[in-house]
């Protein structure tokens, strides 16, 4: 199955929770924000929110800016 992750296609073996996805990507959940199909996912919902085939996911963090 394929999702759209940060604008690019991304392969996943099967549906994953946001937590599992972040873990698979080796990303520290404390320092990012996640948007799932255009809705922000609260950190409390990382375990329950299920990312499925065709979903769109944006994972962002803070970078230098003015």
């Amino acid at each position, binding site marked *: 199955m394929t999702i759209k*992750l*940060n*604008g*690019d296609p*991304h392969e996943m073996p099967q549906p994953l929770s946001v937590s599992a996805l972040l873990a698979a*990507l*080796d*990303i*520290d959940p404390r*320092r*990012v*924000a*996640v*948007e799932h199909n*255009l809705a*922000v*996912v*609260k*950190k409390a919902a990382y375990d329950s929110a299920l990312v499925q085939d065709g979903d769109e996911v*944006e*994972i*962002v*963090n*803070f*970078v*230098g*800016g*003015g």
Partner: protein
Amino acid sequence: MDQPLVIAGRVFSSRLIVGTGKYPSHAIMKAAHEASGADMVTVAVRRVDISRKTESLLDYIDTSKIFLLPNTAACYTADDAIRTARLGREAGMSNWVKLEVIGDEQTLFPDNEGLLEATRVLVKEGFVVLPYTNDDPVMCRKLAEAGAAAVMPLGAPVGSGLGIQNPNNIRIIREQSKVPVIVDAGVGTASDAAVAMELGADGVLMNTAIAGAGDPVSMARAMRLAVEAGRLAFLAGRIPRKSYASASSPLHGVVGS
């Protein structure tokens, strides 16, 4: 004595707000932040780089002392800005946003129509909105009426270093505004920051002037002092301008007269 800068009930010890972009290194940024005395810094919200691990900006910001202000830089529509603001809130655990809706790539001037729309939406959602706008008293008033916690008129194009291009407008914005006025963008060197404060601005926000200086840490300190100097001069009350001289030493009692 002077009151501290207060925005949306939050007290800031410094009237200087600095950015986190374009520094030679994270280490230099950290040193510059300390030298600047700023207790609020702006950050951008961007996609995590999946392909490779990068060290986190936040490892170089002591968030126990420095408040993070996420921006919506590079958003060209109200929708993108709103979406980015929401993500920034989730990532930052705070509901503040430096709201940018850009209208032109060449000047990075705001699209005030979109800015006003995004401000209204985000204020309704409980955000503390600090919109980046033109040096236009009317737009600043409308943003405040829309619920902006402060207004951030530009002094000159972002990163141009041209200094305050229209001091008269900044002065009038300050005279008319019911919310704090932060001059954002355009500062090139210390005197520019002092000028902004002498016009009555409640604070100054800058990034490139420090990050792009030959020695960012020294320039950060210069900006800290300049903002303080300009504020003090504004409160002290400057002498009037005259076209001719007025002597500093007595005219009488001159020897041989």
